[in-house]
């Protein structure tokens, strides 16, 4: 074999090995469990708020009535579309509340981590169904909610910080033979998928901004601040600092476009995460989208190593539910 052939073979072996290591390394599910806990709370809050206008958004004569919904689905997906929602089979207010109560129960189970895997699958199906029916009242929060629930189904999201974990620890104390390590490949796959999906979200959020003149001339930040329909904190005093506004505008675009590269480097990751926290908390407090800002931060948890989460939990003595065994 000549030198080029040998180098190519070595490179191929290295690539396959790196791929296997990236996807198929077993990891502690602490990161995934933290995401489950936070996503569960977010889903619960999101759907409790739906309760205030349940018939208006999910009843047959709601803001988007069923005829209009079918028409919208048709225009988005053609005559043979695959959109669905269990709300189309519900035509009484009583049944609507029963179905909604069931959904809230599932989100509670997911949050506390009881029957976690089943709860995760049902939470995903319910989230999709609510989204399909409430077409017309959705925004970024819903996109992040459905993305996170999709990946929670894949891994053992209830293996830590949950009632399931507490039960398992209790069983293991009684029966030492039933001990199983917590590290799991599926937890790694779920976390990797969230990480990559977050990169795609930020990249395209930045790429789509590049099509707008205001993100180039630096006025986009002012346009967001001056929109009183969004505004929750009045930042119009910044009108006198156009250079600061332009700098913030450019930082947002640069951050979004570079996230997918810089987040993977261990040296730049803390800076990227800190920027994400500042940006999303800013959106949360000033532009009235606390839920969206927090949902994006939940997605960013995927980049926090499980051992760090476990160290934080132990330090703050909040790990009453976590088992003491199975950690390296």
């Amino acid at each position: 074999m000549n030198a080029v052939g040998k180098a190519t073979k070595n490179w191929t072996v290295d690539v396959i090995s790196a791929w296997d290591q990236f996807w198929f390394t077993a990891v502690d599910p602490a990161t995934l469990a933290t995401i489950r806990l936070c996503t569960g709370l977010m889903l619960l809050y999101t759907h409790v708020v739906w309760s205030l206008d349940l018939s208006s958004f999910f009843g047959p004569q709601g803001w988007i009535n069923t005829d209009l919904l079918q028409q919208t689905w048709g225009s988005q997906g053609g005559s043979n579309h695959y959109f669905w929602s269990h709300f189309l089979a519900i035509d009484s207010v009583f049944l609507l509340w029963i179905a909604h109560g069931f959904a809230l129960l599932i989100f509670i189970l997911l949050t506390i981590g009881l029957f976690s895997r089943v709860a995760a699958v049902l939470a995903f199906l319910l989230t999709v169904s609510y989204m399909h029916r409430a077409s017309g009242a959705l925004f970024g929060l819903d996109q992040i909610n459905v993305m996170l629930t999709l990946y929670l189904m894949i891994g053992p999201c209830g293996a830590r910080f949950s009632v399931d974990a507490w039960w398992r620890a209790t069983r293991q104390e009684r029966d030492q033979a039933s001990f199983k390590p917590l590290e799991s490949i599926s937890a790694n796959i779920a976390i990797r998928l969230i990480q990559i999906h977050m990169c795609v979200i930020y990249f395209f959020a930045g790429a789509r901004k590049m099509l707008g003149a205001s993100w180039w001339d630096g006025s986009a930040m002012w346009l967001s601040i001056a929109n009183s329909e969004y505004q929750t904190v009045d930042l119009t005093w910044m009108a006198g600092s156009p250079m600061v506004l332009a700098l913030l505008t450019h930082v947002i675009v640069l951050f979004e476009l570079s996230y997918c590269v810089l987040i993977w480097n261990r040296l730049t990751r803390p800076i990227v995460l800190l920027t994400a926290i500042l940006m999303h908390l800013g959106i949360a407090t000033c532009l009235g989208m606390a839920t969206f800002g927090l949902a994006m931060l939940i997605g960013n948890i995927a980049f926090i190593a499980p051992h760090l989460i476990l160290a934080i939990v132990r330090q703050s003595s909040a790990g009453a539910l976590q088992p003491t065994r199975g950690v390296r």
Partner: protein
Amino acid sequence: MGKRNRNKVEKNKKQSPSPLGRGIRIGISLLLLAHLAVVIATPAALVMPGSRLARWLLQGAAPYVQAGNVSHGYAFFAPDPGPGHIIEYELRFADGRKEQGKIPDTRKHWPRLRYHRHFMLTEQLAALWMDEPPPPENPRFDSAWQQDHRRWARQRRDFTARANSYGRHLLQISGAMAVEMNLLRHHLLTPEEFLSGRSLQDRDLYETGEIVTVYAEEQR
């Protein structure tokens, strides 16, 4: 490959083999690649003018993308943060009473998430609001105009259907005989205009767009 990554790869090679067999790893890898292709293709297809390859991929994956709500466009405040939209409405009752309201309403729609849901209703209606394209002065542009006009007509039909759905809902929850809805566009001030003493709430910043009236007898 960097030294650190190479060391990791070398270490991984020396470790015990993965508990998953090669066939399973290949199968999972193919599924992951297919899923990630869809995740990337969706926003790529939605960035105007949209990738042809991404659109072709999404056509094939339509059952997965649509049924699972798998991926989105992720256009947050893009391409430009634009003006806000509100609906001011007047309900007319059989006894002659009139009631005014607006969507969204900070006083009525609390907590903020609830306000935002209603705000999205008006924003999505406004996204369909489009002026009829004027006929071209030069007949050479007739076919382009006809294309634009067909698009406008489609959008106009969707706008009317959505506005009527909102109107019928308002009639249903209020028991009114008619509702007149006025879609307003709230234009934004420049920093210079703001510094000259103008207010974000100046009435002349609200442009009246479409006035739609829905009557109770039209309800099915």
